[in-house]
């Protein structure tokens, strides 16, 4: 475990060098069917290592669009997007796949577990696409989210909250520096939301950078910083508290 340091960062001076995610004039335009939609419009901001950022905004404001680009599933139509110092535009599709497997862990609102694989196998699937499977490690990851005892169960045999925990275990298995969560508690009740919130807190404490889309003010309050979107435009909130950064 890396050493965790708490510092107060001067946004203008230190941010650039610590940024794991940096956007400069990033736009994403969807064209087709005769119309073009600018889902993200000239976004410029950065996220530093170990930061927990909440992305908020009304439906259709471009939150998922932003998260998908941060997750290298999509590319900007304009501007530059750098993740961990690497310019995504310069990467070939294959390199991008590799990069995604190494750097990003996804947590979905819909969990997206493969229905015919057990909880354990769903976690191992991420290992498989990353490098090679290791059942012991996969079990440890399930233990960490409190799902060790349900390893052999199919997703259909798990509650929504349990499925989300498996999804988190899967996102963590390859130890990615960045976790992207698109409404991780959108489909969960209060009790399960709490469990997931605690897990995210835990992950934040251990140095993961978390970018989380949420509609829920309670969840958003957990983050150190909120980025509000409206009609594709970004409104960055000033840093509220100290930034926990991982010295790497």
């Amino acid at each position, binding site marked *: 475990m890396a050493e965790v340091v708490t510092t107060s960062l001067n946004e203008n001076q230190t941010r650039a060098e610590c940024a794991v995610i940096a956007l400069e004039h990033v736009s994403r335009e969807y064209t087709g069917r005769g119309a073009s939609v600018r889902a993200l419009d000239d976004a410029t901001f950065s996220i530093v290592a170990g930061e927990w950022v909440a992305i908020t905004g009304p439906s259709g404001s471009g939150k*998922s*669009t932003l998260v*998908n680009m941060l*997750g290298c*599933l*999509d590319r900007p139509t304009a501007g530059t997007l750098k993740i961990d110092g690497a310019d995504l535009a310069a990467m070939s*599709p*294959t390199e991008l*796949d*590799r990069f*995604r*497997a*190494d750097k*990003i862990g*996804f947590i*979905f*609102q*819909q969990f*997206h577990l*493969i229905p*015919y*694989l057990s909880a354990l*196998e769903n976690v*191992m*699937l*991420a*290992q*498989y*696409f*990353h490098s090679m*499977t290791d059942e012991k490690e996969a079990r440890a990851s399930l233990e960490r989210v409190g799902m060790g005892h349900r390893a052999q169960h199919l997703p259909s045999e798990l509650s929504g909250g349990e499925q989300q925990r498996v999804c988190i275990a*899967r996102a963590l298995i*390859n130890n990615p520096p960045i976790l992207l969560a*698109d*409404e991780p508690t959108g489909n969960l009740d209060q009790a399960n939301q709490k469990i997931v919130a605690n897990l995210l807190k835990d992950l934040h404490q251990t140095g993961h950078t978390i970018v989380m889309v949420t509609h829920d003010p309670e969840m958003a309050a957990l983050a150190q910083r909120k980025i509000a979107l409206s009609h594709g435009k970004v409104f960055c909130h000033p840093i509220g508290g100290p930034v926990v950064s991982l010295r790497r």
Partner: protein
Amino acid sequence: MFLRLLYESFARQRRRKLLAGLAILLGTTAVTAMLALATTIGDRIHQELAVYGANIVVTPKADQLAVKIGGVDIKPATGGAYLKESDLAKLKTIFWANNITGISPELPIKVDLSIYGGATANDLLGIGLWFDHPLTGGTMTGAPQLHPWWKIEGSWPKGPGQLVVGRALATKYNIHVPMRAGLAIPGAQNGIDDVVIYGILDSGDDSENKVFMTLNTAQNLNGTPDAISRVDISAQTKPEDAFARQDPDTLTPAKREIWYCRPYANSIAYQIREAIPGADAQQVRKVEQSEGTVLERISGLMWLISAAALLAAGFAVSAAMATAVLERRGEIGLMRSLGASRTAIALLFYAENGLLAIVAGAIGYLAGSALAYTLGAHIFSGVSTTHALNPVLLPIVVALALIVAIAGSTPSIRAALKQDPSAILRGDA
């Protein structure tokens, strides 16, 4: 993990896989049957010809101006010459006499046939034939033996006053068996003979326009006893090779001896020419060649059917794959988000289809072999020497099945991988 994924995705969407697999199975069945038949068809033709039909035909020499029959010079009105029926006994004296399995002499004459209470058909072609004639060794020979495809309704003529007519004539003049009729030689003085039509012949060729009687009847009607104008002979022969095509008169005596003592159709024909005065005996290749063309066309048709079957299988796979991929778009998007490369996902789908193709192809191979076996037994009745399973075909057929499956599934797999994974994931949300 790969095997686990493969196993799971193989076990799911069973109905669709069953359909795609069935299509591949049918395609490979057709191909296997076709290949199995095509590889054995050549051998079969030879075997068939040993059983079916004549391979040597004996005619009077073209330059023969006259033949003495019963001490009388005959110049037939047709301009042709005659051979003597009695000379056929000399066939028993040739070197390869025992290889002769069938003899069918014939004498064509012109006849008028009047149906009592019906029409009169003038200037029909009447043929005198052997129907049941003893050959050496107690076997019987004659036209029916040399034309095994002939079908008779009723019975063959056994003596004078008995006739068989071709199916075309029977239909035209509304003839049923048995039926009385009058038979006469056109322009002859000796009047009309009372005859009974005992049979109707289905031959599938122009023999269906002819009238058949015993050779003796034809000879007597024509006033040419012992005359025949053509003899079809079927003999067991050694397949023709380069040596067989040599002209024996240009060979050295030693070589000629070898040539003579081999049962080539040419050697036997040569011996017949020696034995029967005024005879020209020639090997018949026409039959083999025409049968060959027919079989060539049939196998061409089979190729076409096979290609069509494979194409249809390809389309079926492609359709099945299109929906399968559509159903699994979410899964594909998820795998991409986990860092799976396009190649890794394509590999999974291809492996799944490949496995299906191998299984379906192998079953298709078995089914096709069985089909070829039964078809073979039907087409070449009696002679079934082909092995039911030809192991050489298995890899060919499975490879074809693989090509079809891969080609069929490529469009959908490509389309699926081209899709924006973020859109797929969002589509679910």
